[in-house]
């Protein structure tokens, strides 16, 4: 087990190094003069030149990359060109906001998706099976921005059930400590706001979680169907175990591995795919942070943002791999 864990960790180093190289190269291949775009029409040639020097754009590519790696090793992600703040510090609130949204979305996707998949497999060819698989098909092909705007229109504008934008009641905000709004509200003893924060989470997390929900439902169903035909399930049933127990305990445990893979992959893609949701729901997360950086050509922020997302993706994959080993003891021998 430990050897497996260490081996998995060691693989991370070349992966991460490769990531820095790719991110760094892509950014530098984009055409156009960044100084002009950053400073705008009204800037003088003098200030543009100063900015080029500050960014090191006048130096050779390899030298820029070396400097970048050196700073990275010290945990320094550089300063944002737009705001001139250290990125490592500036990114924390955005990262927290995205984390909160991602967790809520995955919670929705896993709870609804897995249950729908399980019940569909359990009651194969029933009306519930058909309905939920149609929903899953629609869900997986639904454009996020459309879904988000429709949610706002129905649940906020027409029914007035839920707020449409932001993270909390902005007229009476909670003080930011961890930047995770729910936890901040609890720390601040603001129980009224805990509820408000949850309400703000509902629409964006459904918008963001719909695709993973649909994917998870379909995978769970097919994986469960396979397992349910296995001999040991028949044995379990023959022993007279309750259906509920058979399905949720015996079958689910073995059906869970492909589902886990999908959950991991989907969580990773949520991190990057949050841009649209964050834009529509005015959610100040990492997706928007990078998006704004791209539109103002804030090189260091683009680099760092993509790097962080890639890093999280790798970490999530690591966790998934380790969970395999926990779920199925045979895996680490392979």
């Amino acid at each position, binding site marked *: 087990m430990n050897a497996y864990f260490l081996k998995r960790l060691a693989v991370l180093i070349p992966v991460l190094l490769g990531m820095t190289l790719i991110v760094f190269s892509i950014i530098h291949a984009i055409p156009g003069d960044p100084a002009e775009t950053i400073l705008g029409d009204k800037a003088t040639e003098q200030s543009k030149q100063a900015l080029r020097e500050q960014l090191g754009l006048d130096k050779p590519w390899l030298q820029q990359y070396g400097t970048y790696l050196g700073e990275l090793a010290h945990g320094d992600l550089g300063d944002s060109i737009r705001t001139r703040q250290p990125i490592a510090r500036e990114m924390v609130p955005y990262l927290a906001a995205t984390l909160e949204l991602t967790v809520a979305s995955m919670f929705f996707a896993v709870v609804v998706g897995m249950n729908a998949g399980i019940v569909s497999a359990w009651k194969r060819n029933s009306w519930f099976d058909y309905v939920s698989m149609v929903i899953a098909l629609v869900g997986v092909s639904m454009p996020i921005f459309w879904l988000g705007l429709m949610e706002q229109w129905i649940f906020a504008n027409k029914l007035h059930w839920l707020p449409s934008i932001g993270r909390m009641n902005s007229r009476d905000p909670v003080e930011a400590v961890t930047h995770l709004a729910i936890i901040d509200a609890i720390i601040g003893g603001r129980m009224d706001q805990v509820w408000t924060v949850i309400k703000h989470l509902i629409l964006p997390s459904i918008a963001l979680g719909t695709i993973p929900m649909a994917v998870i439902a379909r995978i769970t169903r097919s994986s469960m169907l396979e397992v349910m035909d296995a001999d040991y399930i028949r044995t379990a049933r023959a022993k007279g175990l309750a259906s509920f127990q058979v399905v949720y305990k015996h079958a689910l445990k073995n059906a869970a591995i492909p589902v886990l893979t999908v959950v991991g992959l989907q969580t990773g893609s949520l991190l990057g795919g949050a841009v649209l949701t964050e834009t529509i729901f005015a959610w100040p997360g990492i997706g*928007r942070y990078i998006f704004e950086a791209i539109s103002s050509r804030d090189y260091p922020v683009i680099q760092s943002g993509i790097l962080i997302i890639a890093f999280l993706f790798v970490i999530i994959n690591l966790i998934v791999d380790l969970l395999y080993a926990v779920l199925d003891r045979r895996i680490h021998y392979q």
Partner: protein
Amino acid sequence: MSKKYAKHNIWTVLLVLALGFVLVLSGCGGSGEGAKPEAGQPSGGAGEGVQDTLIYGRGGDSVALDPAIVTDGESLKITHQVFDTLLEYKDGTTIIQPGLAESWEVSPDGLIYTFKLRQGVKFHDGTDFNAEAVVFNFERWADPKSPYKYEGDSFDYYDSMFGSEESRVIKSVKALDANTVQFTLSKPQAPFLQNLAMATFGIASPKAVQEKKADFKSNPVGTGPFVFKEWKRNDSITLEKNPTYWKEGQPKLAKVIVRSIPDNTARFNALQNGEIDLMDDMNPDDVKQLEGNSELVKIERPSFNVAYIGFNLKKKTFNNPKVRQALNHAVNKQAIIDALFAGQAKPAVNPMPPTLWGYNDSIQDYAYDLNKAKALLAEAGFPNGLPEPLTFYAMPVSRPYMPDGKKVAEAIQADFEKIGVKVNIQSPEWATYLDDLKGGEKDDLYMLGWNGDNGDPDNFLYTLLDKDTIPGNNRSFYVNEELHKILVKAQTEVDQDKRAELYKQAQEIIKKDAPWIPLVHTTPVMAGKTTLKGYVPSPTGSESLGNVYFE
């Protein structure tokens, strides 16, 4: 037995699921304040039932909050609340009026300006506003080695309005006494007072600049109607009432929260849901829905921009003014406005908006007339249209003066086709786009626009069409010596009537030469609650919210 049991279980699970779903939804609606959680309700105990917090929704965040180092409109919208300038623009116009300076005198040669400052004004940090503070600010902006200029900062607007380091217009700024400050210019500058009223020249507290150092740009301190409170990047900026503001009875609001909501439709949804009270940049398509909502009111910002098609005069096709005039005749501006601007624009005749003084009303536009266009092309030696297809650069990004550049380009492409001129539309990414236009090698004609900064015609005509601004904002590479003489003369002439006359002449020359097809002046549309009163949008794009209140 097991079968019966199983059935029972399915229904239990389904019931639990359904119950959970209902609970979630009912919980959301049930708790009452969920309905319109943020708006509607008056906040704070201040006025009984009257709202005293304004939530203003806009598309993007500020870059920095020190007005001197920024050039973007979103930053100035905030600094306009925190800082005052020596002079101000009258509400909704670009006519100057006293601000922190109560009165002023100009020497006959136009070189010495003496300002009497308002007394008893305090910065938000409690220090006094006085002549020394004015001197401190102007010296900070003028000195490239100022200790209060930080890495990466530059005072771009100061450089562009008052000349770069080698050719500063302001020679010196002196405090004659505590309330009198004197500017000595190195040469007369006609738009000098007009420039001083720009939001970017807001007077900062010297003590705060010295103490906060680089942090000043995210913790601004001025004398304005609102005190800066908090900035959550990409989310919101909170401003609170300045209780000792010098303007009688202002500000009327207790708090202003400015939120960034990037998607136009989402922002409109938030307004309809009562989560914000005022919003920028309506989608033209949403205007109908806005007009049908009795709780909301449409607010039009005075048109102060121009969108245009520029000809690249480096290309020999356009050497002949007849070709340029022919293409001017071939564009059906009104049809484009009706179809693609939802009517929220006016056809442009001249390179500057008609609301600006010095505008030449007597100039007739090139009428939409395909026969005339064909005749002109024939005269230029192209009886069958142009032999080669042209490269037409269409904007890849949306701008206030041009919501959808590609669609407008397609409409124009169809218009040109009718007179035998083929164009290939290209829309490279924005930075490349600007680079290419500046180089002038790749494009034959291009689309661009401009929003006025300071209410002076110089800021349109000289900035965009003088030979001095090549390479730069004159992306047509248009050179006319006679025009240049007029524009330079207008810069140093102090008498505004004489200047207006010069600018009218300039517009005639430009119309005849036709380096552009002036396309439209758009009217940016905003929306607000009907209970919102006292909001007067400025043509420059930002205004003080001191007079705004709710009924």
